[in-house]
């Protein structure tokens, strides 16, 4: 290291990078909070739960900042060292090395990685530039949402359970983010899935909400199969479960592991081997040429991506996310908008160095992302519920992120994850604030004119809306335009297609988000006229706030006059909204486009060592970047302008006309019904499964399985019915049976012994003989076949030379005799003819056997 390098404050923090204990605490603290709240929350009361829930996550956030500072220090250290090396004479420019800070907790288990090999999977947490971004987003937004929850759940009796689940979610999410290996990441992946399920069905007494949770769980399981299979194939072929190990393998030139990943999967061979019975191959008749050919790596990455479509709500597995809005709104903000659903994007970024080698899988990702973005945007156009619109908006934005990954711009995808976390959390929490203030109303047709009643909520919601629709200067603009640009210039075959599709989706995003804003906050306040005052706060529709009754009644504005206007919420709700709105404004400035600054953006530079990308030469593509930006701004302008014209200038008239016009009515209804995808899935998957289960339960189980079980029961019962007759209860019958038994046993012993001979020819005339044994038997052998028993050979086993005689047909045989005498002096005799080999007698070959 260059001694002239000035001391940097961060050098201090970088003291120990291989066993940096703070990482362990970052993960552990939320678990502690979950345990405290889950076990003692009810006993210690609200204040304790709020304090424990917020403090553990908040502390985790502060420690994350500390760890981030340490990472900066380590980066600085490494950069200084590199500069020193370069100055020392190497002279050539090196890429910035990947700097990471890690903490190994313990060795977990050893798992096979190919034939005869295995690798230790560790509980090890790693902070690198990629996980640092996610860590700060998750703990930061998580802390804010915990604070918000103290306001939002103030009137719910399940507060302890809620905070316990929320903390457990943070624990799982941090495991997912900081995991060093895919198996540990998968633990976090499943953990967040579990917490998502628990929190969607938080108000489980409402069966609709409970089944929404179940749907999320089941749909995610489909994806998880893909993760397990993909992970296993990758480990089997590349020989590593941990991401560092995989990265090393892929960094090597001509690595045999990477070459084996490039081999084609002989799907026919594989299936044949899996389903072969002896030499019969069950699937021999299938023409495997018709099945698309995969390489092992392509199969693994595609399977992992299927997992991502489950977790991150992409086609075809997105259907659970809109239903997931059944949970409390802060949960929707934290889990189903800002953090968990971006796990799929994060996984792709983690494994970007794998994905960049498989362009066809990348193309699949890009197309699925783009189509999902467009499809979800169209659905969002016609939804009538606040949170439903936001849910489809989330699906759509996640589609953008996958577009970025699919065109090889993983960094841009993660940048969008980061900005999206800010403004979408703000939007969801704003929606929650509206529902909290308006007695859980969330139908757009019943809201309106809230601008003057909820000024803070309105302002923050508006800022977040402007951010998501890509208003120049706000965070969404920077991240979305980076994605559009990278799609336009990507070498991918599908680049143009996804660019156009994404642009269309961006236009629609601007339209439906402005519609949402206008219908909620502008126009006339409709009051409570749609709801009788006496009914108070009966929950609305499918996804209303489930704790409605307790909630609305206890609330200040729930009382009194039916015409009381809604009031602004408490500080812990509005404060969080303001913070997130502020972040939505400034968050984008770490990703300023190259077009403006003419150097790499901060975030791109920061992520460069951790994330592999398809290279882009910004300098020569300035015109394309300008074009993408221009079109992006046009999309924003057309979309928001259209919404302003349709909903503000014309007061919603054009939409009504459109719906009334004959031709469009069917299409409108189709869009409003979410393209009837749920119905399609119901028809194609759910119903056949139900039918199969029905058959299995009512035909197979009831008649065949139960039949076998009943048969097993009937046999002993029938036997018992017979044997029961013998149990007379009379002691004399038993005594007689006993006496008879004794007599039979004595008779058995007294009867003549059994006499049989077993033999084996050793060689020539040499034979081994053995008599059947019995208690108290004595044996007399006649080995020479003369008919006289030789009393000197009395052993049960004999080995002797017998006397051969000629038998008819030229065979040579021996005859041996045996007399067996038992303890009662009764005897029996037997003779046995032993076939000898047909050849002439040879010299005995002892020991040849």
């Amino acid at each position: 290291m260059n001694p002239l390098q000035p001391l940097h404050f961060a050098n201090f923090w970088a003291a120990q990078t291989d066993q940096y204990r703070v990482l362990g605490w970052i993960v552990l603290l939320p678990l502690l909070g979950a345990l405290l709240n889950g076990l003692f929350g009810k006993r210690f009361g609200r204040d304790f739960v709020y304090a424990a829930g917020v403090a553990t996550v908040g502390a985790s956030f502060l420690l994350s900042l500390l760890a981030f500072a340490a990472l900066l220090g380590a980066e600085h250290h490494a950069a200084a060292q590199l500069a020193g090396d370069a100055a020392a004479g190497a002279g050539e420019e090196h890429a910035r090395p990947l700097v990471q800070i890690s903490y190994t907790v313990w060795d977990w288990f050893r798992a096979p990685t190919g034939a005869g090999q295995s690798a230790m999977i560790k509980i090890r947490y790693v902070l690198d530039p990629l996980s640092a971004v996610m860590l700060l987003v998750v703990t930061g937004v998580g802390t804010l949402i915990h604070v918000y929850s103290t306001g939002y759940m103030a009137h719910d009796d399940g507060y302890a359970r809620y905070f316990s689940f929320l903390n457990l979610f943070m624990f799982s999410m941090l495991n997912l983010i900081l995991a060093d290996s895919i198996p540990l990441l998968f633990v976090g992946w499943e953990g967040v899935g579990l917490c998502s399920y628990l929190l969607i069905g938080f108000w489980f007494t409402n069966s609709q909400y409970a089944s929404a949770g179940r749907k999320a769980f089941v749909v995610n399981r489909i994806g998880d199969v893909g993760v397990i299979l993909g992970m296993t194939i990758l480990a089997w072929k590349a020989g590593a479960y941990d991401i560092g190990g995989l990265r090393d393998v892929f960094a090597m030139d001509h690595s045999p592991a990477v070459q084996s990943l490039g081999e084609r999967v002989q799907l026919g061979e594989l299936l044949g081997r899996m389903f072969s019975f002896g030499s019969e191959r069950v699937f021999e008749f299938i023409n495997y040429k018709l099945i698309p050919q995969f390489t092992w790596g392509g199969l693994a990455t595609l399977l992992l991506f299927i997992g991502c479509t489950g977790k991150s709500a992409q086609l075809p597995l997105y259907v659970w996310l809109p239903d997931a809005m059944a949970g409390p709104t802060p949960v929707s903000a934290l889990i189903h908008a800002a953090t968990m659903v971006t796990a799929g994007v994060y996984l792709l970024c983690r494994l970007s160095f794998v994905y960049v080698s498989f362009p066809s899988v990348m193309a699949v990702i890009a197309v699925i992302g783009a189509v999902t973005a467009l499809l979800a945007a169209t659905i969002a156009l016609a939804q009538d519920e606040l949170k439903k619109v936001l849910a489809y908006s989330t699906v759509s934005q996640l589609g953008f992120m996958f577009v970025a990954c699919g065109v090889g711009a993983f960094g841009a995808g993660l940048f969008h994850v980061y900005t999206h976390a800010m403004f979408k959390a703000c939007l969801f929490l704003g929606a929650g604030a509206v529902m909290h203030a308006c007695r859980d109303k969330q139908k757009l047709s019943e809201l309106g004119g809230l601008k003057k009643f909820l000024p803070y909520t309105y302002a923050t919601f508006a800022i977040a809306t402007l951010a998501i629709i890509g208003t120049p200067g706000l965070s969404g603009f920077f991240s979305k335009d980076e994605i559009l640009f990278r799609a336009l210039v990507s070498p991918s075959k599908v680049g143009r297609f996804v660019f156009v599709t994404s642009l269309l989706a961006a236009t629609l995003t601007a339209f439906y988000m402005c519609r949402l804003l206008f219908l909620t906050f502008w126009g006339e306040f409709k009051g409570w006229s749609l709801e009788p005052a006496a009914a108070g706060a009966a929950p609305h529709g499918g996804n209303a706030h489930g704790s409605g009754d307790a909630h609305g009644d206890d609330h200040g504005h729930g009382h009194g006059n039916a015409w009381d206007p809604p009031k602004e919420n408490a500080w812990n709700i509005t404060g969080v909204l303001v913070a997130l709105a502020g972040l939505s404004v400034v968050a984008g400035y770490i990703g300023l486009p190259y077009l403006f600054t003419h150097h790499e953006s901060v975030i791109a530079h920061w992520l460069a060592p951790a994330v592999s990308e398809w290279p882009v030469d910004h300098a020569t593509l300035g015109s394309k970047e300008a074009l993408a930006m221009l079109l992006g701004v046009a999309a924003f302008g057309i979309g928001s302008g259209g919404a302003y014209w349709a909903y503000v200038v014309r007061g919603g008239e054009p939409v009504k006309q459109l719906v009334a016009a004959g031709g469009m009515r069917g299409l409108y209804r189709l869009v409003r019904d979410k393209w009837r995808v749920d119905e399609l899935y119901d028809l194609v998957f759910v119903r056949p499964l139900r039918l199969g289960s029905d058959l299995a339960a009512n035909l197979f189980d009831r008649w065949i399985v139960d039949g076998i079980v009943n048969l097993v029961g009937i046999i002993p019962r029938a036997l018992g019915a017979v044997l029961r007759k013998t149990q007379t209860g009379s002691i004399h019958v038993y005594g007689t049976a006993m006496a008879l038994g004794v007599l039979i046993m004595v008779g058995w012993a007294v009867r003549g012994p059994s006499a049989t001979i077993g033999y084996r020819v050793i060689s020539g005339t040499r034979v081994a003989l053995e008599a059947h044994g019995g208690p108290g038997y004595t044996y007399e052998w006649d080995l020479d076949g003369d008919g006289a028993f030789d009393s000197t050979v009395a052993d049960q086993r004999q080995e002797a030379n017998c006397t051969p005689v000629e038998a008819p047909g030229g065979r040579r045989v021996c005859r041996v005799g045996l007399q067996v005498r038992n303890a009662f002096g009764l005897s029996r005799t037997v003779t046995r003819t032993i076939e000898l080999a047909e050849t002439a007698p040879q010299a005995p070959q002892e020991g040849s056997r």
Partner: protein
Amino acid sequence: MVVGLGHILALAGLLFALGAAGFLMRRNALVVLMCVELMLNAVNLTLIGFNRWQASVAQPAADAAAAATPMIPHHGQVFAFFVIAVAAAEAAVGLAIVLSLYRVRKVLRTDDANLLKE
């Protein structure tokens, strides 16, 4: 006439057959118990008989010191004591059962003592 092992065994066999026949044929619980005692005593007789026989056929001691204090075998006799003790216990338990059976059913017929069948 010398009373040998054969005589004793014949008597014991006779006694045992008598007891067994009585056990199987009589219905009075007290008589059944007495027949059991008869069988046990037949066994005792064989034990004593074999003990005596063993003592009579025992090999003379090899040396003078051992010959001075001849080892008289007594395993059979000791075993007979064990059998007597067990028989006493059996009689006590058996009579107690018979007594309580009588209190419950007012009979001593073993045919009536089949409650456990159901």
